[in-house]
């Protein structure tokens, strides 16, 4: 019966389900964490930035 209701686009549920509230809460937490990480890294978080700070050009200059 649950299976049938799950696949029925017209099954009505009036209140916002708990799983949606959980998803929203988790999304807010993840968004805050991402912002904190970006702030700590100065917004420069692409490949090669973690170790060197300024990307591929600095890699080449390391060898020079």
């Amino acid at each position, binding site marked *: 019966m649950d299976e049938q*209701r*799950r*696949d029925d*686009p*017209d*099954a*009505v*549920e*009036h209140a*916002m*389900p708990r*799983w*949606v509230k959980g*998803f929203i809460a988790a999304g807010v937490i993840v968004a805050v964490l991402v912002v904190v990480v970006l702030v700590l890294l100065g917004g420069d*978080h*692409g*490949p*090669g*930035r*973690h*170790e*060197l700070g300024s*990307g*591929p050009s600095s*890699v*080449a200059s*390391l*060898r*020079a």
Partner: protein
Amino acid sequence: MSPGVRKLALTVHLMVSVGWIGAVVAYLVLAVAAADGSDVQTVRAAWIAMELTGWYAIVPLAVASLVTGVVMAVGTRWGLFRHYWVIISLVLTLVATVVLVVHMPDVSAAAATARAPDADPVALGSDLAHPGVGLIVLLVIQTLNVYKPRGMTRHGQRMHARSQPVVDTPRRTDR
């Protein structure tokens, strides 16, 4: 949408969505090889392959998944804004696609460094976070799409009420 067209759209949507997950897994394997750094040639090859996989497999599959997902939602009774699971899937897919497209130029820059004979590609570090988190997001979307958890938005409830036939009170007959 006729049943035949709906089935075709669903087939294409499933193929590109699952293909997107597979391509990200392949990218993650290459990212692990690049992060290992024990062999310079492997690191060079991995970054070049990551760029090619990203631009020619992951980005097209992501865009196709987004477009076919919207087509499927709009073209069926599920709708785009009627059910919470559809909205959450749409938002997560949009975020994943935008982050991917914004991130790829950085991968191209790293691949260009890996191609340069005088550069040390081992110093490029790793790119494990983006494909790792991206894979988790894609698995969450896939799970939502299969389970279709209950929950209709206010908009969905209004549309549902509007589509219900009006029930007449039984008329008295003189029979």
